[in-house]
C-alpha cells in the first residue's frame, strides 16, 4: 500500500491504519478514507459489475452517486463506496456478481449483448401462459439484475426528524457557497450552510486554484455569529415555498428558508467512446480528489483528455504526483491550455490534436486510441465539459437552457426567493465563484429587506464548451449511461421506435433512471437525441428533476410521524378485566372480556355495560341551534321538546346516508348530539363547513375527548343505577324511553339518555372523562348483586344485529338511501330543506333498486359470510351486509340487500357462499328480537 507523500492526503490520518475486508480479502486503509479510496490505494479499482452486461466498473467521479460504486455492507445494500467512511473490520462485498467480482459468471451477458436490445424486456417475456412474467421471468431477471441484498431481519435504525428555520439556506459549501454564507451572516442574517462533504471547500479542497482563499473563508465561517455550518448534510429536494429536507445519516431536518442560494457546482460529463466504462477512466476531478484528499496515485501512466483549460491543470497535478504523462489529447481546433500548455511542453508531454476514439483492456484500462494511434496507459483522466448541477434549481422552477453559440448549458431561475452562485451559475473558478457568492448573498439580503442593492453579476467564466462528437461505434460498448448500461445505439434505436421526446426516451430506455439520475449522461443524451431528431440541444433539454435528488432511507420518511392511537378514559379498566382489545379507527376498544355469548345473555337477562366513550359528542348552542339541526339532519329537531332525545340521520348532498346518532335537547338553545365513532371528525367539520355558508346563530363544540360514556343496559339496568345512587327519578314514568336528564349518578355529573341500542332498557351515561373511572367502578360495585357484566364490541354488534340496528358503513355504502333501509319514517316531510333532500326526491322518482332486509337461513346448514352475493334468477342483486350467531335466538341473524320485489317477509332468496355453494334464505323483518320494542321501552 503506497500513498503519495504529504501534503497530499488532507482527509486521511496516516497514524491510524484500519483493517477491513473486500470480497473476503483483507485490505488496509487509513482513518478518513472512503471505501473506494482505500481500495484504490490497494490497487483494487474494480468495484462492481454493471447492471445488464456485468462489465467491470469502478470509480468515475469520486463524488459518490454512480451505480459503479455501489457495494454491499452487512445488512445495507447499495452503499456508495466513495462516500462511506472506512471503519475497522468493515465487511465489504461487491454487488451484482454471480461467483466473484473477478470471475463473474454473468460476464457472458456482455457477449450476448446483441440479443438483448434496448427495451427487450417489454416484448420478450410475454409467455408461456398466463402471468408468465411474474411467475418465470421476473424472478429470473431479479436474480440476474438485482443490486444488493436486503437483510429481512434488519430491525431498522433510529430515525429522527426535526424542523429548522432560517433567513437564508445556502446549499453547497464550495467557495461560492462559503462566500455567500459569510457575506449574509456578517450582515446579520440567520444562515444555514449545508455541505455534503466531511469538510467544506468544494473544488478548492482538491484544486490548487482557490486553495489559498479557503482558510480565510473558513475562519470567517467560524467567526460569523448567525451561521450554522452543517457538514456531511445533503439537501435532497426543494419543495414549495422553500421547504427543503436536509439529511445526515438517520436525521432529517425539514427546513424552511426565507431565501435559498443554490451553490451546487457543476457536474463533469464523461466522453462517449468504445469501452469508455473501463476502470481507470476517471473524470479529471476524480483523479484530483484521489490525490489531494487520499494521497492515492490514480495510475502509473496517464493520458489526459482535455476540452477545457481545466484538463491541463489536471495533467500538471498528475505529473507532480509522479504519474507518467503519455499524452494530452485536446481536440479543440486552436484550443490551448495557455501557460499550462507551455509547462507541459517543457516537460516533454505530447499534445495531440485529437480526441480519444476507443479504449482497450479487460478488467482495467490498458490503452487508448487517440488520433488513430494506440497509447498504452492505465489511467485516462478526462476534462470534457460540465453541466450545472441542475437538479435542485430545476425542482425550484429553474429552466436548463443551452446556448448553441457557446455550447454551454445554463440555468435561469424564476422570480422569487431563490439564487444561484458559482459554477452552477456559470461562474466557475475560484475568484469568480467567490465574487458570485457574495453577489448572490447581497441579492438575497436585499430581498429580505436589507439595504444594499446587489452588484450586477460578473460575466460568465465558464469556457466555451467544445462538444465532443458522439457517434455510435460499429462495435458498440460506447456507454452513455453507465448505471443502466445504455449505449449510443440504444438511444438511437429508441428514437427509431418512435420515442423522440426525451421524457419518452427515458421511459423506454431507462436512461437516467439509475442511482446517478442522469448526472453524467445528460449532455451526451441531449446531443445524441438532438442529432437523431434534427433539433437543437436546447430544444431537447433534460428530463424533469424531481425530489429526492439522491436515495434516502425509508425510515426518514416515517421519522417523527408516530401513528395516532387513542385510548378511552376506561382503557386501564378494560386491560385489568382481561379484555381483548381491538382497534376501531384510531381508538382501542374492548372486543370481548370473556365469552361473547355470556355477555349477550347478561344483557338480555340481567344487565351489561359497554364503554361507548368513542362515540362522537357534539354540543350545539345558540338561538338557531334547532333550526341548524333541521337543515343538517332528516328529522325535525327545532320542535323537539326540551328533555327529549331524538334519533338523527344525516345524508350527504347525494341523498346517501352518512351518519346517525341521537340529539338530546338540553335547553331551548342547547343540543347534545352524538355521532358515530368513525364519522365524528367529518361530521364536526361538515357542521362548521355548512355554517360557514349558512351563517346561522349557532356554535358547535366537539366534546368527543372531553366526555366519556357508558351504556348500561338490560332488564336490571335501572336497579343498578338506583343502587349506585342517582340524583334523578329513574322510574319509567319520570324517565321514559327517548328522554334525557342531567344529574348525578354515584356522585358523578352525567348527561343520561334513554335510547334503544341493545333493545333492552338502555341508559347512556355521559360524564367528564376525568370522572369515568369512578363512575365505572361505582356501577361495577352496584351491579354485583344484579349480575352485571361488562360487554365488548362483539356482543354489542350481536345485540344490535338482533334488533336490526344498522352500522353505517357496514350495512350501508356510498349509494344507500334511507328508503333502501326502510327508514322512511326518519325523513321529515314537512321541512322545506335539509341536506340531501332534493337529491333524495330525485332518487325516489327513479325508484328503488334494492332493499335491506333481515335474512333467515335454514338451521344447521351452511352460512354465507359478510359481503357474499345475493342472487335473483342467477343475477347478483345485493349482498349479505352483517351476519352473526345469535345466542338469544339460537340461530344466525343477518341483514342483506335484496331486490325490492323480494322485500316481503317470507320470500325465498338465494345467497352464494364464498366457496360457490348456493343457500336459500328467507326474507324477514329487520328486527329479529322483540320486534315491537316493548323491552326497551319498559
Amino acid at each position, binding site marked *: 500500500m503506497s500513498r503519495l507523500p504529504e501534503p497530499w492526503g488532507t482527509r486521511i490520518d496516516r497514524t491510524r491504519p484500519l483493517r477491513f475486508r473486500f470480497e473476503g480479502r483483507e485490505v488496509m486503509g487509513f482513518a478518513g478514507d472512503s471505501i473506494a479510496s482505500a481500495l484504490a490505494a490497494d490497487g483494487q479499482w474494480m468495484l462492481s459489475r454493471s447492471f445488464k452486461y456485468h462489465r467491470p466498473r469502478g470509480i468515475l467521479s469520486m463524488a459518490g452517486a454512480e451505480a459503479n460504486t455501489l457495494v454491499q455492507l452487512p445488512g445495507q445494500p447499495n452503499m456508495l463506496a466513495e462516500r462511506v467512511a472506512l471503519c475497522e473490520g468493515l465487511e465489504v462485498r461487491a454487488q451484482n456478481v454471480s461467483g466473484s467480482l473477478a470471475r463473474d459468471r454473468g460476464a457472458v451477458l456482455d457477449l450476448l449483448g446483441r440479443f438483448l436490445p434496448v427495451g427487450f424486456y417489454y416484448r420478450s417475456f410475454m409467455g408461456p401462459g398466463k402471468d408468465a412474467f411474474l411467475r418465470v421471468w421476473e424472478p429470473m431477471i431479479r436474480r440476474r439484475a438485482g443490486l444488493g441484498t436486503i437483510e429481512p431481519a434488519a430491525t431498522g435504525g433510529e430515525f429522527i426528524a426535526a424542523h429548522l428555520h432560517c433567513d437564508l439556506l445556502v446549499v453547497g459549501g464550495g467557495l461560492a457557497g462559503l462566500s455567500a454564507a459569510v457575506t449574509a451572516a456578517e450582515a446579520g442574517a440567520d444562515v444555514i450552510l449545508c455541505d455534503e462533504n466531511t469538510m467544506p471547500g468544494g473544488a478548492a479542497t482538491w484544486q490548487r486554484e482557490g486553495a489559498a482563499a479557503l482558510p480565510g473563508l473558513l475562519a470567517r465561517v467560524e467567526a460569523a455569529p448567525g451561521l450554522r455550518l452543517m457538514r456531511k448534510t445533503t439537501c435532497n429536494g426543494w419543495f414549495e415555498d422553500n421547504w427543503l429536507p436536509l439529511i445526515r445519516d438517520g436525521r432529517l431536518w425539514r427546513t424552511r428558508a426565507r431565501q435559498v442560494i443554490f451553490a451546487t457546482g457543476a457536474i463533469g460529463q464523461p466522453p462517449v467512446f468504445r469501452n469508455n466504462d473501463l476502470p481507470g477512466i476517471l473524470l479529471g476531478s476524480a483523479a484530483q480528489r484521489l490525490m489531494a484528499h487520499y494521497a492515492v496515485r490514480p495510475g502509473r501512466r496517464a493520458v489526459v483528455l482535455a476540452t477545457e483549460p481545466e484538463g491541463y491543470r489536471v495533467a500538471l497535478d498528475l505529473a507532480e504526483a509522479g504519474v507518467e504523462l503519455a499524452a494530452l489529447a485536446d481536440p479543440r481546433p486552436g484550443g490551448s491550455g495557455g501557460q499550462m500548455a507551455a509547462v507541459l511542453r517543457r516537460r516533454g508531454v505530447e499534445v495531440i490534436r485529437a480526441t480519444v476514439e476507443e479504449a482497450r483492456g479487460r478488467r482495467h484500462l490498458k490503452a487508448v486510441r487517440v488520433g488513430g494511434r494506440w497509447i498504452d496507459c492505465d489511467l485516462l483522466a478526462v476534462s470534457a465539459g460540465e453541466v450545472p448541477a441542475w437538479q435542485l434549481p430545476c425542482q425550484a422552477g429553474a429552466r436548463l437552457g443551452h446556448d448553441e453559440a457557446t455550447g454551454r448549458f445554463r440555468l435561469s431561475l424564476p422570480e422569487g426567493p431563490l439564487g444561484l452562485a458559482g459554477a452552477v451559475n456559470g461562474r466557475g473558478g475560484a475568484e469568480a465563484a467567490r465574487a458570485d457568492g457574495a453577489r448572490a448573498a447581497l441579492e438575497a439580503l436585499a430581498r429580505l429587506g436589507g439595504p444594499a442593492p446587489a452588484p450586477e453579476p460578473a460575466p460568465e467564466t465558464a469556457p466555451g464548451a467544445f462538444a465532443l462528437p458522439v457517434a455510435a461505434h460499429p462495435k458498440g460498448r460506447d456507454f452513455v449511461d453507465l448505471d443502466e448500461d445504455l449505449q449510443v445505439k440504444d438511444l438511437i434505436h429508441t428514437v427509431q421506435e418512435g420515442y423522440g421526446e426525451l421524457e419518452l426516451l427515458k421511459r423506454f430506455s431507462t436512461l437516467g433512471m439509475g442511482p446517478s439520475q442522469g448526472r453524467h449522461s445528460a449532455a451526451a443524451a441531449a446531443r445524441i437525441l438532438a442529432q437523431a431528431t434534427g433539433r437543437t440541444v436546447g430544444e431537447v433539454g433534460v428530463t424533469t428533476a424531481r425530489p429526492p435528488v439522491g436515495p434516502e432511507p425509508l425510515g426518514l420518511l416515517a421519522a417523527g410521524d408516530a401513528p395516532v392511537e387513542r385510548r378511552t378514559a376506561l382503557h386501564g379498566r378494560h386491560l385489568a378485566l382481561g379484555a381483548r382489545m381491538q382497534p376501531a379507527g384510531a381508538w382501542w376498544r374492548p372486543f370481548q372480556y370473556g365469552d361473547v355469548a355470556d355477555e349477550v345473555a347478561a344483557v338480555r337477562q340481567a344487565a351489561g355495560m359497554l364503554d361507548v366513550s368513542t362515540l362522537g359528542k357534539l354540543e350545539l348552542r345558540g338561538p338557531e341551534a334547532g333550526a341548524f339541526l333541521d337543515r343538517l339532519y332528516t328529522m325535525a329537531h327545532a320542535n323537539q321538546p326540551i328533555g327529549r332525545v331524538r334519533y338523527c340521520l344525516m345524508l350527504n348532498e347525494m341523498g346517501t346516508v352518512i351518519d346517525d346518532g341521537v340529539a338530546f335537547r338540553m335547553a331551548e338553545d342547547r343540543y347534545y348530539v352524538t355521532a358515530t365513532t368513525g364519522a365524528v371528525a367529518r361530521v364536526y*367539520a361538515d357542521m362548521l363547513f355548512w355554517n*360557514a355558508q349558512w351563517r346561522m346563530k349557532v356554535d358547535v363544540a366537539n366534546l368527543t375527548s372531553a366526555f366519556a360514556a357508558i351504556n348500561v343496559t338490560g332488564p336490571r339496568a335501572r336497579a343498578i343505577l338506583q343502587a349506585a345512587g342517582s340524583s334523578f327519578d329513574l322510574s319509567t314514568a319520570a324517565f321514559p324511553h327517548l328522554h334525557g336528564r342531567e344529574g348525578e349518578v354515584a356522585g358523578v355529573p352525567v348527561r343520561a339518555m334513554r335510547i334503544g341500542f341493545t333493545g333492552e332498557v338502555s341508559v347512556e351515561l355521559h360524564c367528564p372523562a376525568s370522572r369515568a373511572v369512578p363512575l365505572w367502578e361505582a356501577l361495577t360495585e352496584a351491579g354485583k348483586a344484579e349480575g352485571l357484566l361488562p360487554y365488548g364490541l362483539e356482543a354489542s354488534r350481536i345485540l344490535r344485529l338482533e334488533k336490526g340496528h344498522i352500522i353505517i358503513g357496514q350495512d350501508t355504502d356510498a349509494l344507500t338511501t334511507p328508503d333502501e333501509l326502510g327508514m322512511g319514517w326518519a325523513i321529515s316531510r314537512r321541512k322545506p330543506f335539509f341536506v340531501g333532500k332534493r337529491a333524495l326526491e330525485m332518487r325516489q322518482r327513479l325508484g328503488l333498486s334494492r332493499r335491506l332486509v333481515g335474512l333467515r337461513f335454514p338451521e344447521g346448514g351452511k352460512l354465507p359470510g359478510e359481503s357474499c352475493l345475493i342472487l335473483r334468477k342467477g343475477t347478483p342483486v345485493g349482498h349479505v351486509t352483517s351476519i352473526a350467531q345469535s345466542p338469544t335466538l339460537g340461530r344466525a341473524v343477518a341483514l342483506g340487500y335484496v331486490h325490492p320485489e323480494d322485500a316481503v317477509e317470507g320470500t325465498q332468496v338465494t345467497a352464494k357462499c364464498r366457496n360457490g355453494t348456493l343457500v336459500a334464505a328467507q326474507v324477514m323483518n329487520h328486527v329479529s328480537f322483540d320486534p315491537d320494542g316493548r323491552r326497551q321501552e319498559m
Partner: protein
Amino acid sequence: MKILTCPMNGPRNIDEFQSFGPMREAPDPEVASDADWARYLFQAENQPGVVVEWWRHVPSNYFFLAERDIVTNRVLRTFDPGEAE
C-alpha cells in the same frame, strides 16, 4: 411544503389545511330542474384561472375562502367568509 395564510391563524404549513373545493352557488332547490340540480352536484367547472375555494384549518376547524390561481398554484388572497361580498 406550501405555506397558506389562514385569516385567523396566520401563515401555516399546507398540511394543516384541508381543501373543500371551489365555492359554488347552489340553485334554489324549490325551482331548479333535476338536470340543474344534478349539474350542481356533480359537474366540476375546473377551468384554468382564478377560483375561490373553501379551505379548512384542521386543528382549529376554521373555514375560510382563498382566491387561488389553479394554473400557477399562487394564492392571491385569503379571507373570512364574513368578508365575502
